[in-house]
């Protein structure tokens, strides 16, 4: 396995774990954590390609990931605020109990 492939495989496994958590966990906070894991896997891919993918812009990979981290931080802040707001209204953070719109 080349160095690049090792990183890609680890990132794929991390993405899979995050996806499984985001799809199956009942608690909304952990669904958000699963999304964070998937974002980290994507960042790992970007940096691995930047380092091992041949020539290109010397700073592009780092810049991409820096901006992704900033957007992820904003997303987490808003997501957790939403969860706290839902908890205040419904007294639960379980996603299967927040189903008022369900027909």
């Amino acid at each position, binding site marked *: 396995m080349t160095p690049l492939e090792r990183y890609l495989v680890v990132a794929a496994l991390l993405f899979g774990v995050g996806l499984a*958590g985001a799809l199956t966990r009942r608690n909304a906070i952990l669904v958000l954590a699963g999304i*964070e894991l998937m974002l980290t896997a994507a960042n790992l891919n970007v940096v691995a390609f930047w380092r091992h993918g041949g020539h290109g812009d010397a700073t592009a990979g780092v810049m991409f990931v820096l901006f992704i981290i900033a957007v992820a931080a904003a997303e987490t802040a808003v997501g957790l605020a939403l969860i706290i707001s839902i908890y205040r209204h419904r007294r639960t953070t379980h996603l299967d109990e927040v189903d008022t719109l369900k027909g």
Partner: protein
Amino acid sequence: MDAAFSIFALLLLAGAVAAMSLRNLIHCALSLVVVFFSAAGLFLLLGAEFLSFAQVMVYVGAIAILIVFATLLTGSAGATTGALAFRPWLLGVGTAGWVTGVIVAAVLNGRPLPVEGKTAALPTVRQLGEALMTRYVLPLEVIGLLLTAALIGAVVLALREGGAGRGKEPRP
């Protein structure tokens, strides 16, 4: 390099599995910290030092703490009873396993990238700062605006409605 990679990769995956499968939410948050530290270690191995420190500052310093705060605020810390996952959890795990399998197979069976010898010299923090202030200055300003808007939005969302009283009760 090899030993360090194995250690960080193992810690990363073990922490991720623990974060997604443990019952106690505080334990999950602590496992997330392990995952983020290991990812920072992998960034360090890949030669992205600045990114590694940014990862520790943002993820471990801010996001993990936010998750712990949300856990405590929603009173989920002691909630160890009840089902952990949705009922057809096998469906979700199967989907995730299938996606992972496809990606890993694609990575292992794809043609290797043409390696152009050693890559260019790693950028120093000075170069990164100069790039941020020249070529990437517009994205940087947009990100600053986005962060400001997101934080104001988060505060507005999480603020208690109607002054000191409780929030509105849901309609029966």
